[in-house]
C-alpha cells in the first residue's frame, strides 16, 4: 500500500508540472463555458457535455501519452525490476488521472454554479456513478491506444485522432441539439456517446436507460480486456 500511495503522490506531482496538461484539463473547459454559457441558457445541456469532455481529454490525450512515454523510455522497465507489481503501477495511474479529471470537473462546476443553479445534477448519486463509469470507459479506451501504439509519438497522434471527432460529434463541446442529424447519427456510434447521454440523463434526472448503461459496461469490459491483453511493458 505504501508503494501505491508513493507512486500516486509522485505521479500527481508530475501532473502538476505539466503546464499543457493543466491547461487542457483545468482551464480549457472554463473557456468553453465562458464562450457558450455567456449567451444565456442551456447550461443543463452544456455542463454534462463539458464533464464528458474533461474525461475524454484526460483519457485520450493524457493517459496514452504518459503510458506510451513511460514504456518507450524504459521507465516501466526500470519499475519492473523492483518488487512493485504491474497492477500497482497501473492502479496509481488510474487514480492520478481520475484525480486530474475530478479537479477539472470540480473547478468547472464551481465556476458554473456561481452563475446558474443547474450546475448541480438532479440526481447526484446517479451523476457520481455515471461519472466514474465514464472515466473508466474513457481511460480503458486510452489504455488500448497506448497498448496498440508502437511508440509515444504514435500514441499521441492516435489519441488525438480518436479524441477530436468524438468531442465534436458526440455532443461534448457542442450540444447535440446544435448538430445536423447526420452528424448526430455518426456521433451516436462513437464511444463517447453513452458517456454524454448518461451524464445528461443524470443532470436532468430523467433516469439512465438500460441501453446506455449496457453500452457503458460493454465499453469498459471490452476496452479493459483488450488493453490488459495487449499492453507490453517494453
Amino acid at each position, binding site marked *: 500500500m*505504501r*508503494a501505491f500511495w*508513493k*507512486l500516486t503522490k*509522485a505521479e500527481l*506531482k*508530475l501532473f502538476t*508540472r*505539466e503546464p499543457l496538461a493543466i491547461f487542457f484539463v483545468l482551464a480549457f473547459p472554463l473557456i468553453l463555458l465562458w464562450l457558450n454559457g455567456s449567451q444565456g441558457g442551456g447550461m443543463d445541456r452544456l455542463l454534462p457535455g463539458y464533464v464528458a469532455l474533461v474525461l475524454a481529454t484526460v483519457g485520450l490525450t493524457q493517459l496514452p501519452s504518459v503510458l506510451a512515454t*513511460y514504456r518507450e*523510455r*524504459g*521507465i516501466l*522497465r*526500470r*519499475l*519492473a*525490476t*523492483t*518488487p*512493485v*507489481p504491474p497492477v500497482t503501477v497501473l492502479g496509481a495511474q488510474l487514480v492520478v488521472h481520475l484525480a486530474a479529471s475530478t479537479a477539472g470537473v470540480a473547478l468547472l462546476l464551481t465556476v458554473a454554479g456561481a452563475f446558474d443553479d443547474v450546475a448541480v445534477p438532479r440526481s447526484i448519486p446517479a451523476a457520481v456513478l455515471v461519472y466514474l463509469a465514464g472515466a473508466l470507459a474513457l481511460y480503458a479506451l486510452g489504455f488500448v491506444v497506448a497498448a496498440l501504439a508502437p511508440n509515444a509519438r504514435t500514441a499521441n497522434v492516435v489519441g488525438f485522432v480518436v479524441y477530436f471527432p468524438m468531442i465534436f460529434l458526440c455532443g461534448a463541446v457542442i450540444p447535440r441539439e446544435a448538430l445536423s442529424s447526420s452528424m448526430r447519427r455518426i456521433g451516436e456510434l462513437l464511444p463517447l456517446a453513452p458517456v454524454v447521454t448518461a451524464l445528461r440523463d443524470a443532470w436532468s434526472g430523467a433516469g439512465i436507460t438500460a441501453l446506455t448503461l449496457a453500452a457503458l459496461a460493454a465499453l469498459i469490459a471490452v476496452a479493459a480486456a483488450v488493453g490488459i491483453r495487449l499492453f507490453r511493458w517494453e
Partner: protein
Amino acid sequence: MATVVEVTELRKRYGETVAVDGISLTVEAGEILGIVGPNGAGKTTTVEIMEGLRRPDSGRVRVLGLDPRRRGAELRQRIGVQLQQAALPDRLKVWEALDLYASLYRDPADWRRLLEDWGLEAKGNAAFADLSGGQRQRLFIALSLVGRPEVVFLDELTTGLDPQARRATWELVKQVRAKGATVVLVTHFMEEAELLCDRVAIVDRGRVVALDTPGALVRGLGAGQRLRFRPLGPFDLDSLRRLPGVDQVERDGDQVVVAGDGSLLATVAAALAAKAVPVADLRSEGANLEDAFLALTGRGQRD
C-alpha cells in the same frame, strides 16, 4: 562459499538470432563477477534473464535459490538492478526518485545517505531531465542499492562517465561489495573488469569462452613481458637478441619493442647500461585482460 547465482545451459533466441547459446556460470557470494564480451555477445540478455526481465527458451536459472520467473516478487526484494537503458520521468526530482524507489522495498536503505554517497546531494532538487549523463548514471546506481540488495546487477556501469567519475565509481562498487553484496558487472571496458572483478566470464557469440580470475586469464595467454624504449642514437638490435630470456626484438617507428620472459626489464636495462646506450621512455608492458580477450575471441570488439 555459497553460490548466489547459478545458470545452467541457458538458451535464448530472438527470431533467427541466437542471443544466448548455452551459457552456464555461477556467481559466488561476496564476489564481483564480470561479464565481458563484444556488443551483441549475449551479456545483457543473460543478466536480464537472471533479473527475471526475460524468459529463457531453455536452461535453468537460480538467483539466491529462487527461480526468477516463479518467485519474481520475492527475488526483486533482494536484488538491485541498474539497466543499460532506463529512464525516469523528466520532471521527477532526484530526491523524489530515491524516496519513491525506497518505498517499493520491504527494508530500504536511507536514501539521504545514498544521495551523499553518490555525490548527488547538491542535485537533490534537480529534475531528472536536467541531470548530466554522469549524474544520471550515479542516480541509477544509487537506485539499484536503495532496496539493500544481496545481489546487484550493474549493466554498463560506467558508460558515459568521464575517466575521473569512472574511477570514483569503481571505488564505490568496491564499497558495495565490502558491505557484503555480491556484484554482477556487465562491461565492455577491459580495464574496468581487470581492476574490479574477482572473476571474469568472457562471453562471445552467446557462449562463455573463458571464466577465471583476470590474472589467470592473462597468464593463460602464455604471453610474457614486453619492453618498449626509444634509443637516442644509432642502435644495434642484434645486441639485444643474444641476451638470455629475450624472444623477439622489433622496431616500431622510432621505438624498439623487446618481448621475452619475466626478468626482461633487469636483463635489458643492464645490457643497455653496460653499453652506455642512451634511451628514453623505457616502459614495461605486461599482457592485460584486453590481450586475453582478443586472443580468446579471436578479434577486436565490434563497436
